[in-house]
């Protein structure tokens, strides 16, 4: 959730360089076959990290003294969808988290039910793809506990998180934020559905009522304003098929680097 979209979209539209060498570089940049080769680097990064992360190592946890004085809110900070406006009007009392797709027993959870489950509190560093970092304290229910309650159907490989915010306003819903992680990260002990931040209820700017924390990856994986979790065997038919809002716009699906 960390890219200044308006600036990016504006500059993509306006930027064509004047000099010969730059035009050459930009031509390379836009070549599909060059991109196909470069994407091998992303594959290599993921394979290498996963090889070394086989033991489900934890992301570093910090102390209260390390907290950022101000945790920068980024991405959507006030969703403008009708469904979210209704949630604000009712103070999120009607909000429920749907968990479905390739599961044995689809279920929906109220906030009270999620808060009644065992919780985990962790002070971790949030790293934006742009380069900045902020340290915050997150409280939530481990995603693994929620998945245990619904039970995964055979063949489920990814958890897809559907959100209430349309980061890019669209009529057909193609601008709605979504994200996905695989089961390695879904079962990781620090992967939590967070309803509390810095000792208080999660604020709207940070994703109220519920957001994902997936601590070993970059900020845009930490989907805010969660409405529904869908277990799938492939995200090919969701959005533009790359597994997330920013992934559909060119960013890596595996954001561990």
């Amino acid at each position, binding site marked *: 959730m960390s890219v200044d979209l308006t600036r990016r979209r504006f500059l993509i539209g306006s*930027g064509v360089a004047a000099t010969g060498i730059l035009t050459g570089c930009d031509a390379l940049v836009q070549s599909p076959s060059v991109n196909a080769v470069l994407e091998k680097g992303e594959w290599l990064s993921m394979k290498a*990290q996963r090889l070394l992360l086989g033991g489900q190592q934890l992301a570093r946890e910090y102390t209260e003294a390390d907290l950022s004085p101000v945790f920068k809110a980024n991405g959507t900070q006030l969703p403008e969808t009708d469904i979210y406006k209704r949630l604000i009007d009712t103070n999120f009392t009607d909000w429920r988290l749907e968990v479905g797709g390739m599961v044995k027993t689809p279920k929906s959870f109220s906030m009270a039910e999620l808060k009644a489950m065992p919780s985990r509190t962790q002070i971790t560093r949030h790293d934006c793809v742009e380069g*900045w970092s902020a340290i915050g304290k997150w409280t939530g229910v481990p995603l693994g506990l929620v998945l245990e309650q619904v039970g995964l159907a055979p063949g489920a490989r990814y958890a897809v998180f559907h959100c209430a915010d349309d980061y890019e306003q669209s009529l057909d819903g193609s601008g709605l934020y979504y994200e996905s992680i695989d089961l390695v990260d879904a079962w990781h002990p620090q992967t939590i559905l967070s309803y509390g931040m810095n000792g208080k209820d999660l604020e709207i700017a940070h994703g109220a009522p519920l957001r994902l924390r997936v601590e070993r990856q970059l900020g845009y994986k930490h989907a805010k304003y969660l409405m529904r979790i869908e277990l799938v065997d492939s995200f090919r038919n969701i959005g533009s098929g790359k597994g997330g809002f920013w992934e559909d716009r*060119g960013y890596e699906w595996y954001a*561990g680097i």
Partner: protein
Amino acid sequence: MTSVTNSTGLSQKPKKAVFYRHSWAVRITHWLNVLCLSFLLMSGLQIFNAHPHLYWGQYGADALPDPAFLSIEAYADGDSMKGVTSVGQLQFTTTGVLGASKVDGELTPRAFPSWLTIPSYQDLATGRRWHFFFAWFFVINGFVYMLYGLVSRHFRRDLLPTRAELTSKHLAGEIADHARLRFPKGEKARNYNSLQKLAYIGVGFILLPLMVLTGLTMSPGFNAIFPWLLDVFGGRQSARTIHFITASLVVVFVIVHVVMVLISGVWNNMRSMITGYYVLKPEAEKEIAK
């Protein structure tokens, strides 16, 4: 830097001696390194442009009150804008190059100008894709070079300064010669001089490994794999800053390196790094005449 292939000493006139200076491994890894570092620098500046502030410590963001000690930003200036580079309390107007520069003839807010970034326009996702691809390429190339240098004894033979070369008297003499642009000729040009050796060791064994390690320290995945890297560099934001400073030092080295190549016999230098063969020019004639 060993075998002399042509040094007939029969004639009275001093002959040029051609010798094989750079092995195939050194030549190939050198030029691949040029390719990688060029793309890494330009894609790296693209990534920097997405958040043109540097911090020290574990965290840092452009939300008050995190203090940035380096920022390259654009500010409104009447109808136009100006580029401002801030280092600590100091502010410099850098319009045209840093902070605000022309894109298609129009002054545009961007930290580094479009002619220094890949792609030329703002596109972080593509910049990252290029950066990480060439980072892998660079690391593999560097690994091959290191392995070759150790196994072939290239490092020990050609790069390790002798004890005599490291005396302050010897180094002062070389610095004075360099400052007067007097370069070794004849047999003395057969080996790297000690300033060259120290510069190559400094870049190859300190700066470039630091680039890789500080780069890895910015990866949240690698932080979970090797948390000690965060302690070594004092946090992710410190690592990002050191990454930037180290890259700047590599650029300074490349500028000095290229200037030296140009003024100390550009064709001879280029031929030796392409074909391997370097021509030893005879020493000054009066010396030969004695």
